[in-house]
């Protein structure tokens, strides 16, 4: 094999790579939080009987779930740019991820909510609980257990998909890697380190998520 590996330049740029990794985590967390908020609203809208709300929610969910993430990111960056709305790469990637997360999580939330039998509600009411108490103590805790793993997966997915920031010159891990390798031409080295960093990030997320779930959920479903 003719290729000679040069790792020095990678190590010299480690602070920048770590900074990129931080931005990756940053954008994914934010995309997740905003996605959750919107998904709650969309799920309520979708379960609502009022036609226009339901229609808007359904359209959102279908578009988000049936188009590739790269399309959303291009739309947010170049598409809106062509219309004169210039988003920074960060905002463009963030809004695309929020859009998709919201679409997927809407279905997760709706499914989680509908999987709880309505008899849990009437049984709780018969004990004299107010509606708020029923949701607070009975419905939502059970729902959280059911949506916890799908939500973790969605978060991991966000981290992986934020790598598409590379295409619009965003300063997250992939984008930073791309920029650094184009300065030094150590493509393999830089991307191998980036791959390892992605691996570590997703593993850490999964491990802490399962530790947290063990602490949160003692009962079995």
């Amino acid at each position, binding site marked *: 094999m003719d290729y000679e590996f040069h790792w020095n330049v990678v190590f010299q740029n480690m602070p920048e790579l770590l900074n990129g990794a931080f931005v990756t985590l940053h954008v994914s967390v934010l995309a997740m939080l905003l996605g959750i908020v919107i998904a709650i609203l969309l799920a309520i809208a979708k379960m609502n009987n009022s036609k226009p709300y339901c229609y808007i929610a359904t359209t959102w969910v279908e578009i988000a779930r049936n188009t590739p993430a790269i399309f959303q990111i291009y739309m947010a960056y170049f598409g809106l740019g062509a219309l004169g709305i210039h988003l920074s790469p960060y905002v463009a990637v963030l809004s695309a991820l929020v859009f998709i997360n919201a679409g997927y999580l809407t279905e997760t939330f709706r499914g989680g909510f509908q999987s709880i039998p309505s*008899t*849990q509600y009437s049984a709780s*009411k*018969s004990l004299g609980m107010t509606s708020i*108490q029923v949701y607070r103590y009975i419905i939502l805790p059970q729902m959280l*257990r059911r949506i916890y793993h799908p939500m973790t997966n969605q978060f991991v997915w966000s981290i992986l998909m934020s790598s598409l920031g590379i295409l619009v010159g965003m300063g997250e891990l992939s984008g930073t890697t791309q920029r650094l390798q184009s300065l030094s031409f150590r493509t393999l080295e830089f991307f191998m380190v980036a791959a390892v960093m992605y691996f570590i990030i997703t593993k850490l997320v999964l491990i802490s998520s399962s530790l947290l779930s063990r602490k949160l959920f003692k*009962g*079995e479903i």
Partner: protein
Amino acid sequence: MISIQNVHKSFGDLEVLKGVSLDVNDGEVVSIIGGSGSGKSTLLYCINAIENIQKGKIIVDGVDVHSKETNKDKLRQKLGMVFQQWNSFPHMTVLENAALAPRIVKKMSKAEAIEVAKKELVHVGLGDKFDVYPTKMSGGQQQRLAIARALAMKPDYMLFDEVTSALDPELVGEVLDTLRLLADEGMTMICVTHEMGFARDVSDRVAYFHEGVIAELGEAKQVITDPQNPLTQKFLSKVR
């Protein structure tokens, strides 16, 4: 006292209760029997204000259940209810299941609530299951948990909606024994049931529901063993 006066209840075009009147006195056990769709379970839901009614009145201890001024959450504390499906809260231990409502509805201290819950769990024979999760228990045990959970609210009345009909046959006995125990202790109970032996032996009076009206109401032994109404006779001959 629960006083049911000429109650009408419809689901859309379907009239389920067509003028039902029944007084249940304190300390009395009334069983309601009848075919499926005769409206017997619906009546319990109406007494507990889970369902509203279109006409008539239900008065519990002088309070009109369906009046707008009535605080229904408050009223339900008086009326314990156990359902066909036991509806244990799967994310809580047996003890937490029973202690939750006393704690958050009656605002008892944690220690008080746990004490009450433990007492009622022992009462129904679940004294060794405090820290077990309900999903690990049999249907009969979960149904007894549901009874203890309702009793922990110290209700004045208990409504039982076909509590044994979703159970495996070999588990029916333990739940009926618990009901029998409550009846002996003087609890006022309305039991919708398919267990004719139970209705005959445990209840004071039996009401036979047919198509939304009470077709026959009388002393328990008489209605079950010597029904007067031909409809009751026909029903009982089919059930046996």
